């Protein structure tokens, strides 16, 4: 399996610290400078403290030998040492997170930055791509980001923090503009100039906008032509207190909230269109399917309040719960975080338009399926949205599900279901002709072996447990 060891194509920006992926673990190759920085961290009480409280990924120095002879060829030139990291069950990106997730990732970054200062360390960058989630718990994964503090220097990651954390959060909190499409479209985030154009004059009176957005954009324009190195040296002489700036940014971020997320959180479970009998039978069906399958990774697509994700988590190693609606995902995340649930990862995702490969060669950020395919898929109360709202033909949708090579639990609401009726009401007579129970059952049987099917008490919804046909 040595040939499968490769330098992670998305890890090239920081030449002092590059990620190497092997079948058994994730490694990090450090240059001479990188190694010195790592030792400064390893010799401080910080490493032990942050790893044991779960805010930093588990890491040990193993040296280049751990990668074997053949792997030595692929290590970047000048590699001095190699670290081994604990694995993250499923990699996710900020454009798949809800507001509260991005905010928690921002707070974690700032907390680590402030804790580092006490030990004479700092973070060389401040990007949400340095944070991953273990279920609802954010964890900082870029150990290579810690470096020795150079007294008096400005906060190197401030601009990046604004572009990828602060501006997206401010836009969502103050302007109700979802940040996900923007972060998906711009890998480096929103520039101060762009952000300033999005806020009105009145917004400048809201916390953080005047300084971090308006003034930031103005200074950026004014000093555009100046060499950053020169400015840095000039400012260094002033010995600015970055700790005060970081503390005030932390206070600002911790006070940001998003109303829709709050509402969805309080109205949790009120939107349910099911009868109790339906919900009960459905839960039993799912529970039995998961218990039999004993899956490693389960995808709950269209997870809503996550009721079935929680059932799936009873017998799955890890559950990724997707929903298109950001407010729902935000509510689910908060509820999972309140329970400290580490086996369910909630993500904002539209299955009709899943996360593509992004960045340099389209490999820096990987597609959804590239990050791990499921053993079990729950597609409950989903197909009508995909078929009727997004107009994806039923056959195509089932083809895609078949390609996942996973056990499938799928629900089909018939044309008499109130939600289906509502979705069809805006459509021309005769559209979505493939949305018929008989057609669905035929197409499903062509691709899967249906092991079990049940009709729910309401009579308008059917459940199927199916395995991919050989």
């Amino acid at each position, binding site marked *: 399996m040595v040939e499968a060891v490769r330098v992670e194509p998305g890890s090239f*920006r920081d030449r002092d610290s590059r990620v190497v992926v092997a079948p058994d673990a994730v490694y990090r190759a450090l240059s001479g400078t990188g190694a010195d920085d790592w030792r400064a961290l390893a010799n401080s009480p910080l490493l032990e403290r942050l790893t044991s409280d779960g805010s930093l990924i588990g890491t040990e120095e193993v040296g280049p030998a751990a990668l074997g002879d053949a792997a030595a060829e692929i290590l970047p030139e000048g590699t001095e040492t190699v670290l081994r990291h604990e694995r993250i069950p499923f990699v996710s990106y900020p454009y798949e997170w809800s507001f509260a997730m991005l905010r928690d990732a921002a707070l974690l970054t700032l907390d680590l930055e402030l804790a580092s200062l006490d030990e004479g360390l700092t973070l060389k960058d401040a990007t949400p791509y340095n944070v991953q989630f273990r279920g609802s718990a954010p964890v900082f994964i870029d150990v290579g980001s810690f470096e020795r503090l150079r007294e008096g220097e400005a906060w*190197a990651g401030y601009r990046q923090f604004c572009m990828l954390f602060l501006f997206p959060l401010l836009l969502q909190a103050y302007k109700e503009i979802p940040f996900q499409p923007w972060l998906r479209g711009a890998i480096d985030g929103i520039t*101060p100039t762009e952000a300033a154009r999005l806020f009105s004059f009145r917004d400048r009176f809201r916390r953080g906008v005047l300084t971090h957005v308006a003034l930031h954009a103005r*200074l950026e324009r004014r000093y555009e032509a100046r060499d950053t190195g020169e*400015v840095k040296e000039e400012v260094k002489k002033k010995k600015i207190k*970055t700790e005060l*700036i970081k503390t005030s940014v932390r206070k600002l971020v911790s006070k940001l909230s998003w109303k829709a997320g709050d509402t969805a959180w309080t109205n949790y479970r009120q939107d349910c269109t099911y009868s109790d009998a339906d919900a009960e039978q459905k839960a039993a069906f799912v529970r039995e399917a998961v218990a039999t399958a004993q899956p490693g990774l389960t995808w709950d697509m269209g997870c809503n309040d996550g009721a079935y994700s929680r059932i799936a988590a009873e017998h799955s190693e890890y559950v990724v719960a997707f929903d298109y609606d950001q407010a729902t995902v935000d509510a689910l995340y908060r509820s999972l975080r309140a329970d400290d649930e580490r086996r369910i990862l909630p993500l904002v995702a539209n299955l009709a338009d899943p996360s593509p490969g992004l960045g340099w060669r389209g490999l820096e950020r990987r597609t959804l399926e590239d990050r791990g395919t499921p053993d079990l898929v729950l597609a409950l109360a989903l197909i009508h949205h995909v078929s009727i709202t997004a107009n994806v033909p039923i056959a195509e949708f089932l083809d895609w599900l078949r390609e996942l090579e996973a056990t499938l639990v799928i629900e089909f609401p018939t044309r008499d279901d109130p939600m289906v009726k509502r979705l069809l009401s805006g459509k021309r007579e005769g559209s979505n002709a493939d949305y018929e129970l008989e057609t669905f059952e035929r197409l499903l049987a062509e691709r899967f072996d249906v092991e079990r099917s049940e009709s729910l008490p309401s009579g308008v919804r059917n459940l199927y447990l199916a395995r991919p046909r050989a």
Partner: protein
Amino acid sequence: MRVLAYLDPGSGSVMLQALLGGVATILVSIKMFGKRVYRALFFWKRHDDEDSEPAASTTTAAEHETEKEPV
């Protein structure tokens, strides 16, 4: 020595920090000064951080810092 990181911090962003850093230092000094005045006026009262002597030395250090800083 000029140390260059892989990330360009942006000249405008660095300038903004110089400005914010200056303002923050002034605000902290004012707060500290305010506390001292308050203590002087209500010297018979017990203050929260009274028994922690280092706090007093931090005050002086912070003030000292502002004096030499042209903002």
